[in-house]
């Protein structure tokens, strides 16, 4: 966990490699068997041109970064807004970066407002968003 929660602090990035095996496992765990994720021949005929990872798989990596920084406060009281910009594909390596934009006080409690982005190995933006989390003392 970060020892200093202050404005401008960069969160430890998370790096993950996407494989079709992980996407298939995610489909099994979530119950989301949309063929765009798991059926190569179906996906090849769609505008995205091949299978893509579930958006929530990329968000899971964002959550991992937030939990590593803020611990249980994130898991029990976190807030998130995300926009999926581009699909993540098998073979991609995703890097999730985050930064504390500001720390606000509300009713005597500190809240960290963070932004995050998920980039692929080409530097393309896959997901962007913001989070809010209570800072435990």
């Amino acid at each position, binding site marked *: 966990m970060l020892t200093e929660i202050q404005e401008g602090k960069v969160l430890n990035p998370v790096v*993950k490699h996407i494989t079709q095996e*992980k996407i298939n*496992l*995610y489909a*099994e*765990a*979530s*119950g*989301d068997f*949309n063929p*765009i994720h798991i059926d190569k021949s*179906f996906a090849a*005929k*769609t*505008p*995205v041109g091949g299978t893509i990872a*579930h*958006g*929530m*798989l990329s*968000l*899971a*990596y964002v*959550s*991992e970064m937030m*939990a590593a920084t803020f611990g*249980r406060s*994130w*898991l*029990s*009281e*976190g*807030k*998130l*807004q*995300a*926009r*999926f910009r581009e699909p993540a594909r098998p073979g991609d390596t995703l890097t999730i970066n985050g930064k504390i934009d500001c720390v606000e006080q509300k009713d005597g409690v500190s809240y960290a407002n963070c932004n995050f982005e998920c980039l692929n190995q080409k530097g393309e933006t896959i997901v962007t968003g913001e989070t809010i989390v209570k800072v435990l003392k």
Partner: protein
Amino acid sequence: MSDETNKTISYEELIPGYEFPLANYELSASLVSKYLKAVDSASDGFVPPLAITACAIAAMTRSIPLPPATIAIHAAQELEFFKLVPIGATVECHSRVARKITRGKMSMLILGLEVFDKGKDKVQSGKATIALPT
């Protein structure tokens, strides 16, 4: 999983206020283990909140009728967590159509989601924006 989400409805029935069938999930150790393996992460003794969201979204999208060879794209997501959920707990997912927007050949469905534990405490809420061809 125990739910009625295998029922599909017509796309026209997906109007603001439409409530999807309730879905109950037992968040078993094996389900959590499979999820953690998929997301390449370690357990911290609780159900990852996004594992719950993923199940709830999957239940909703299974109920959305799609013409053959068309795709639904997850465009945006909002989430708020209220409570940790222990492994082995059962949760109940409530979901509904919050908004439906049609622009040209695309529709955007904004789906509201609330998840409760057995004690009827809310554990998370959120909104998923799904883009669909019309």
